[in-house]
């Protein structure tokens, strides 16, 4: 299956839920949807054959003022689909980081939603056990993976300051 074919099948599967599709470097497909439809999209994707969440990525676009949440789905059972990763992406505003959990569709997202919660402060409504997993609570309060949490790094070798 070529990536274009897979995109066509995903489009027909999700219908009007799809806002935008991008194929990155031939094997990573990013499907943008709306926050409101994410549960229905996840259910359809799971029935289609993407049976687990490979990883849950959150990207902080501080200047634009939103978080982009990407559920990167993979397949174990379907050989053809397992070549591809499909990222189901949606944006939520930075000042109100609240979204719905996909725990009840994808158990594999359990700890990863907790990770996104501790690192970015995103509240996954309905998650049965939302608490930090890697960080201790005082550190998690700082939301360390947000872009406004600045780490001072050693000076670059090649830096030209005028």
């Amino acid at each position, binding site marked *: 299956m070529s990536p274009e074919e897979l995109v066509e099948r995903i489009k027909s599967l999700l219908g009007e839920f799809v806002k935008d599709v991008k194929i990155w*470097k031939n094997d990573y497909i990013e499907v943008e949807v709306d926050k409101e439809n994410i549960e229905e999209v996840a259910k359809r994707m799971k029935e289609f054959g993407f049976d*687990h969440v490979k990883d849950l*990525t959150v990207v902080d676009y501080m200047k634009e003022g939103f978080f982009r949440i990407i559920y990167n789905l993979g397949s*174990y059972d379907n050989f053809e689909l*397992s070549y591809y*990763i499909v990222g189901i992406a949606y944006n939520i505003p930075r000042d109100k980081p609240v979204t719905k959990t996909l725990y009840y569709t994808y*158990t594999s997202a359990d700890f990863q939603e907790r990770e996104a919660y501790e690192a970015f402060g995103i509240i996954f409504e309905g998650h049965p056990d939302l608490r930090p997993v890697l960080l*201790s609570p005082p550190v998690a309060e700082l939301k360390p993976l947000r872009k406004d949490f600045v780490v001072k790094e050693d000076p670059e070798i090649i830096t030209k300051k005028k």
Partner: protein
Amino acid sequence: MSGIIRTQGAQVGFNDLKLPGMWSRKIGKDLYEIFIGPQHPGSGHMRIVIRVDGDVIVEADPDMGYVHRTMEKLSEVRTWIKGIPLFERMAIHDACNVTLPYVRAVEKLMDIEAPERAKYLRVLLCEINRIAAFLYGFGIFGVFLGHSTMYMWPFGDREVWVELAEWLTGARLTHSYPVFGGVRRDVPAGFTDALRKAIRYMRKRLEDYRKIFVDNPVIRARLEGVGVIPKNLAIELGITGPNLRASGVKYDVRLNHPYEVYDQLDFEIPVFQEGDAYARVWQRVEEIKQSLNILEQVADWLDKHPRTPILHDKFWKTAPPLYKKIFEETGRAKLGAVYAIMKVPAGKAYERAETARGEISYYVESNGGNKPYRIRIHSASARNALVYKYIVPGHRVMDLPAIYGSIDYFPPEADR
């Protein structure tokens, strides 16, 4: 009941069950909470909070993060090349496998590909690392089960592979071997002969392991039927690596999304159907055999082909004549200054690889600068950690070390 195990500073220091060296607290009729770890006889750095009714675990809560090193955040403030030595600290004895998808993701963004010889060299170190990591896992497993010979033997035999890796790369563990566009060094003279000798030795040793450990009636009694992960549950939880394949799922990144030269090599993906701790031990033994087969083929290929550049032209053409002379004489490719100032075109790439413990995935996003905008790593052990929450309940306390060891859980890799 999930979500109620929370330990705050004020609650520590209780010992209702009077267990030596362990916290325990009564939380209901016939219900006790026991804290296992973070210092325990195996690999350490991880705590499992269990609730027991008598000897049966009714709830388990893995408490990770004791060796969390904020790698995702640190990578955002470092230049691209500095990510390689950073990420390999996740699993130092599996360094090549762990950093390879990062290198490949950046190569994807730059639209370059390593030369064929570099690809074979990467596979060579990947498989050496894989065998060493499996042997490390066996050693830890032996400790868990109180089998001290199985601790000594694999750790001794692992030395063979670690020394081969040192000979090839110059470092025992953190090799930083694959770099953007290729690898750092070519094989030294006489390396393939030593490799073949090591392969012969390892095949013999696997038979010894079978006699003393895998077919040992005591070990079988502790492992058979313990920690069964049914196939559908393994898929649902997203378990990965040998643990997944021991549950009957034929999934291996080397097969499903071939990278480097794995599609040109002849090897099998062993699959077991039982899904218990014993099947997971056999799974690893079989995988070592397949890795040995791969190494043999790589050694043959390297013998047949003369030395050619091992770095992509984009980087190698900027190398001064002195560097090229050193490469011709010793096979070492010194990294040019171009790596320190390189910028990666804007875009996203997703890359994964099969490490010894399972699939590792990297999401790499660049905004065109000299540092990554966002790197998300999800390692194999982090995914396998779900086993403790969903598989352990229902087992006896005695089974916990057997399950922990059979999963081959490695805390530094899980915590990142």
